[in-house]
C-alpha cells in the first residue's frame, strides 16, 4: 500500500461521536445563550397565558396547574425541535456526519443530549417557580419537578426522532407537530398524572415508574432510529 501511513488513519468511536456532537451543539448554544433563556421565557409566557384566557380564580388555577405546566413544557420542548436538525441539514453538516467514521448512534445521541441540556433542563429547574404562581403545594411541586426531570429527556428523544423523520419531508414544522404531539401525549398523561396524584393524596409512584420505563426504552431505541432517519433524509 501507499505511504498515507504518514497520517494515521482515522478511527471512529461511539464516545468520540457523542462528545463531538454534544460539544459542538453546546458551543453553538453558548454562543447564543439567548436560545436557552428564551426557551424558559416561552415556557413562562405560555404558563401565564392561561390565567389570561381563563381568569384567575385560585382554586381553578391550583386545579389546572400541573396540567398547564406540563403542556407548557411540552410546547416549549416542541418549539425547540425544528432547529435540532434543520440547519445541519440545510448547510450539509448532516451529510458530513453520515459520512464520518463515528457510528450514527453516537452523534445522534450527543445532539439530543445537548438539546435536552439547553431546553429540557432549564425548564425543569424553572417549573417550581411557575407552580408557585399556580398555588401548588410544596410536595406537589417536588413531584412535578421530578416528573419533568424524567419526562423531558423522553420528549427530547421522541421529538428528535420525529424531527429527523420530518427532515426531508415537506410541510416542515407542522408535519413535525402531527408526528410528535401524539407521541408526546402518553408522556404528558403520566407526567401530569404524577403531580396530580400527589396533589390528591395518592401515590405518584406508579406514574413515575411508568415514565422511567419510557425513558429507558427511548434511550435504548431512539438514537438508533434517529441515525437511520437522518441517513434516509440525506439521500
Amino acid at each position, binding site marked *: 500500500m501507499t505511504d498515507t501511513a504518514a497520517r494515521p488513519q482515522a*478511527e471512529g468511536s461511539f464516545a468520540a461521536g457523542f462528545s463531538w456532537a454534544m460539544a459542538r451543539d453546546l458551543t453553538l448554544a453558548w454562543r447564543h445563550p439567548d436560545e436557552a433563556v428564551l426557551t424558559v421565557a416561552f415556557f413562562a409566557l405560555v404558563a401565564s397565558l392561561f390565567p389570561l384566557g381563563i381568569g384567575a380564580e385560585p382554586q381553578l388555577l391550583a386545579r389546572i396547574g400541573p396540567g398547564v405546566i406540563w403542556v407548557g413544557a411540552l410546547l416549549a420542548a416542541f418549539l425547540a425541535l425544528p432547529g435540532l436538525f434543520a440547519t445541519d441539514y440545510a*448547510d450539509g453538516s448532516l451529510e458530513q456526519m453520515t459520512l464520518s467514521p463515528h457510528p450514527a448512534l453516537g452523534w445522534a445521541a450527543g445532539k439530543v443530549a445537548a438539546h435536552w441540556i439547553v431546553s429540557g433542563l432549564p425548564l425543569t429547574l424553572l417549573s417550581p417557580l411557575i407552580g408557585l404562581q399556580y398555588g401548588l403545594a410544596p410536595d406537589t411541586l417536588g413531584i412535578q419537578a421530578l416528573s419533568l426531570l424524567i419526562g423531558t429527556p423522553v420528549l427530547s428523544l421522541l421529538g428528535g426522532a420525529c424531527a429527523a423523520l420530518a427532515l426531508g419531508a415537506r410541510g416542515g414544522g407542522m408535519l413535525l407537530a402531527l408526528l410528535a404531539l401524539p407521541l408526546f401525549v402518553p408522556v404528558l398523561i403520566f407526567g401530569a398524572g404524577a403531580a396530580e396524584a400527589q396533589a390528591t393524596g395518592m401515590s405518584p409512584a406508579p406514574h413515575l415508574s411508568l415514565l422511567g420505563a419510557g425513558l429507558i426504552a427511548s434511550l435504548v431505541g431512539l438514537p438508533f432510529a434517529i441515525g437511520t432517519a437522518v441517513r434516509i433524509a*440525506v439521500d
Partner: protein
Amino acid sequence: MTGKHRSGAPDVLQVRDLACRRGPALLFSGIAFEVAGGELLCVRGPNGCGKTTLLRCVTGLTRPDDGVISWHGQPAQVDPERMRAGMAYAGHLPSLKDDLTAEENLDFSLRLRGARTTADERREALASVGLDKRRRIPARRLSAGQRRRIGLARLALDPAELWVLDEPLTALDDAGQELFISLLDRHLARGGLALAATHHRLAPPSAVVRELRLG
C-alpha cells in the same frame, strides 16, 4: 474513459456496473472505473448529466440502482465505517456553521472526521489558505471565496486516502485555485487518490489524471 497512462499501484477504489435513475430517466448505467493511489479521476460532462449523483453514489450517500463499489478490494457495504474513515467528501454544500468562527469550524469538522490535529496545525492550515487574520470572525461574515477556503484547510488536514470533490474550484480566485491544485498535488504525491466533478481543467503536475465522460 481516457487514461493518460496507469501507474502500477493497486486499485484502492473500484466501481463496477454502476447505474442510477432519477425520476423517469436513467441517468447513467454500466459505469465502471478504478482509481489507484496517486491517481485523480475527473468526472466531466454537461450540466445535469449526473456527475453529482455519481459522486454521491460512490460515497454511499445515495443508493445506486445497480452496481458495486469496492474499497481496498472489499465491497463497501461489508464495512462502510472503514470506507468512510478513508474518504473525505466536499460537496455543493459548505457544511459550515455561520455562528462559529473559521477556527472553530475547522476544528469541529476535523474532529468529526476522527482526525487528531493540534491547534497550531489548524492555525497554520488557515494561514496557508489566507485566513490568518479572519480566523476569529464568524463564518457568516466571510465572503463566498473565504468560506470555500475553510474547506481547503479542512482537506489539507484530513487524513483520508480518497478525496471526493464536487466542483472544488467554485468561487475561488486565481490564487485560491492554485492553492487548491497544490494541495491536491501534495495529496496525490503522498499516494492519496481523488475523484472530482468539475467544469474546469484540473492538472496537478505530479499526478496521473484520467477522465470519465458522462452524458
